[in-house]
C-alpha cells in the first residue's frame, strides 16, 4: 500500500463558502499528516476510578482508524474525549493531553463549542432530532449562525448525497426524521455530522443497532468519506474493522495494547493479548 504519510502539502488552506460538490472519486490517495491527532500519556477518571491508563497514540489525518477491544476497555471513553463530550458527565477528570494539529484541545483558550463544531460525531444509537429531515441537517449550520436559504439547501443535498440517502428522502425532506427506518436514521445522523464540514469524524459503534444490509451501506459510506475526513471508528466487530480501516488500535482494560496497520494486526499481531482477542479466546 502506497502510504503517503508525508505532509508535503504543508498547511491545508482555509476555504470558506465553498460551493457544495459531491465528492469525486479519484485513484489518488490524498496525503496525510502523521500526527494529526496526538494523544499524550492520557489518563481518564470517572470520579476515583481510573478508566484509561496512560494512552499514547498518533492518529494520521484522512485515514480511517479503528478502535477495537472488549466491552469496557475504554475505547468509547477515549473517543468521546476527542470532542470533549465526556465533560457533560459530572465528576470526570483527566491527566495528560490530546492535541489536534499541535494545539491542545484542553487549552483554556480553546472554546469547547468551537471544537465540537469542527468535529462530527455519530453515536451508537441514532439520535435524530424530533424535526424534519431538512431541519436535522441544517441544525449545525443554524446554530453557527448560517441562515442563507440557498446555502442551507445546497448543504442538505450535499450531505444527503454523501450519506447515500438523497434518492430515498429527496421527496420528503420536510417530513419528520422519526419516520425513517433505523438504517436511514443512522445515515441521517452521519449526514448531519458532516454538515458543518468538520475535519474529523468520530463514530461510536455506528452499526451496532443496524441490520446487515444497512451496516453494509454505512461501511461503504465510511470508505468513501475517508478521502475528505479523518475518521475514527469504535467497533465491536472485528470484521468491520478489517474492512474499513487502515489502522487499528487494540485496547484492553484501559490500556492501549497495540496500534498498527489493520492488515498487520489481523494477520500477524505483535502482542499475545491482541492475538487472543482476534482469535476469540476472550472478549
Amino acid at each position, binding site marked *: 500500500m502506497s502510504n503517503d504519510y508525508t505532509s508535503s502539502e504543508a498547511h*491545508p488552506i482555509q*476555504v470558506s463558502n465553498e460551493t457544495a460538490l459531491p465528492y469525486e472519486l*479519484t485513484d489518488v490517495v490524498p496525503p496525510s499528516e502523521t500526527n494529526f491527532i496526538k494523544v499524550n500519556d492520557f489518563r481518564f477518571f470517572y470520579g476515583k476510578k481510573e478508566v484509561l491508563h496512560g494512552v499514547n497514540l498518533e492518529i494520521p489525518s484522512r485515514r480511517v482508524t479503528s478502535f477495537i477491544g472488549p466491552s469496557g476497555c475504554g475505547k468509547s471513553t477515549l473517543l468521546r474525549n476527542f470532542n470533549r463530550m465526556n465533560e457533560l458527565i459530572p465528576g470526570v477528570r483527566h491527566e495528560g493531553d490530546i492535541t489536534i494539529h499541535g494545539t491542545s484541545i484542553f487549552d483554556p483558550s*480553546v*472554546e469547547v463549542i468551537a471544537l465540537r463544531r469542527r468535529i462530527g460525531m455519530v453515536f451508537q444509537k441514532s439520535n435524530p432530532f424530533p424535526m424534519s429531515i431538512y431541519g436535522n441537517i441544517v441544525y449545525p449550520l443554524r446554530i453557527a449562525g448560517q441562515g442563507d436559504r440557498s446555502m442551507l439547501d445546497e448543504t442538505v443535498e450535499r450531505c444527503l448525497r454523501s450519506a447515500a440517502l438523497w434518492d430515498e428522502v429527496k421527496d420528503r425532506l420536510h417530513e419528520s426524521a422519526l419516520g425513517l427506518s433505523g438504517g436511514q436514521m443512522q445515515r441521517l445522523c452521519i449526514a448531519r455530522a458532516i454538515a458543518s464540514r468538520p475535519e474529523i469524524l468520530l463514530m461510536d459503534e455506528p452499526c451496532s443497532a443496524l441490520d446487515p444490509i444497512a451496516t453494509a451501506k454505512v461501511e461503504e459510506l465510511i470508505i468513501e468519506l475517508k478521502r475528505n475526513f479523518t475518521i475514527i471508528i469504535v467497533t465491536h466487530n472485528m470484521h468491520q474493522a478489517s474492512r474499513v480501516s487502515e489502522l487499528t488500535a487494540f485496547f484492553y482494560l484501559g490500556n492501549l495494547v497495540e496500534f498498527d496497520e489493520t492488515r498487520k494486526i489481523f494477520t500477524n499481531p505483535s502482542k499475545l493479548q491482541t492475538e487472543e482477542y482476534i482469535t476469540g479466546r476472550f472478549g
Partner: protein
Amino acid sequence: MRTRIGGVPILNTGTLSPLTPEYRRNPDFFKGACQLACILTILLLAFIFGEILLKAWPAIHQFGFGFITGTQWSPNRGVFGVLPVLIGTVESSFLALLVALPLGLSIALFISEDFLPNSLRQFIRFVVELLAAIPSVVYGLWGVFVVIPLVQKYGTILSDHFGFLPLFAGPAYGNSLLTASLVLALMVLPTITAISRSSLVVVPYSLREGSYALGATRWETILGVILPTASPGIVASAILAFGRAMGETMAVAMLIGNSQRLSWSLLSPSNTLSALLANQFSEADGIQISALMYAAALLVALTLVVNIAGEMVLRQTQRATSVLR
C-alpha cells in the same frame, strides 16, 4: 486559492487554532435569567414567612402566649384568644381523617388488588382524581343543601337518644363540627387513596407469592402481609391528609357555623383557624389584623410541621421498600 489536493476538493481544513475567529462565546443571558428565577423563588418563600410574621408581631408582642390559650375572641373589646379555634381545627381534621382513612384505604385496596378488571380500576382512579379537583367552594355549596339537612335530621335523632353523652349533646344545628368534618373527609379522601395506593403497589410480588404458597387466602395475605408492609406509606398518607384538612378553608367556613364558643358536642357549631381568617380579614382593622396574622402564622406553623412529618415518613418508607426489591 488551492481548492483541491490530489484531485480531491479541500474542505474546511483550517487549523484548529485557539484563536479561531469564527466563534466567540457570548455570555449566556438565558442562564442568568434562569438563575434569577431560582433566587426569586427561594426568596419568595422567605418573603411569605417574613411578611406574615412581621405583620403579626404587634399581636405577638401584645398577647404573647396568652393568644394561644385564650378562649375569648372579641375584636370590639380587643380580646383575642384562639384556643377554641385551634381545638376546632384539630378536631375537625381528626374527625375527617377518622372517616376518610377506612374509606380511602378500601378504595386504594380495591384498585391495587385485582378484584376488578383494569378498565374499571382506571375509571375509579379517574373518579377519585375528579373528587380531588372539585373546588372547595362547590363542596361547600353542596354541603349547605345536602349535608346540613341530613345532619340536622339524623343529629336530632342522635341527640334525642344519646344526648346525655357530651359528644352528642343537642340541639343539633345544621352548621356544626360534624357537618364540616364529613365534607372535609370527602375532600381529603383522594390524598389517602393516592398515596396508599402507591404504597400498596410497590409491595414486591414475591411477598404475595410467598404468602399464597403457604396456603393463605387473598384476604389473609392482604391483612397479614401487604397492609403491614405498606403501612408506613399509609401512615404517611394519613399525616398528609391531616395537614390538608387543617388548611382547607371554604367548605369549612360555609358549614361549621363559625362560633367562638368551646363545646364538647359534635353537633354544635365550631370554628377553625382558616375559617376564622376567611370570615374576618375583609373587615378587620388595627390590632385585629395583627391578631389574624398571628393566627395565620400559627396555621402555617401547624401545616408546615405536619407536612414535613408526612414527607419524612413517606421518604422513609420509599427507602425501606427499595431494600425489599
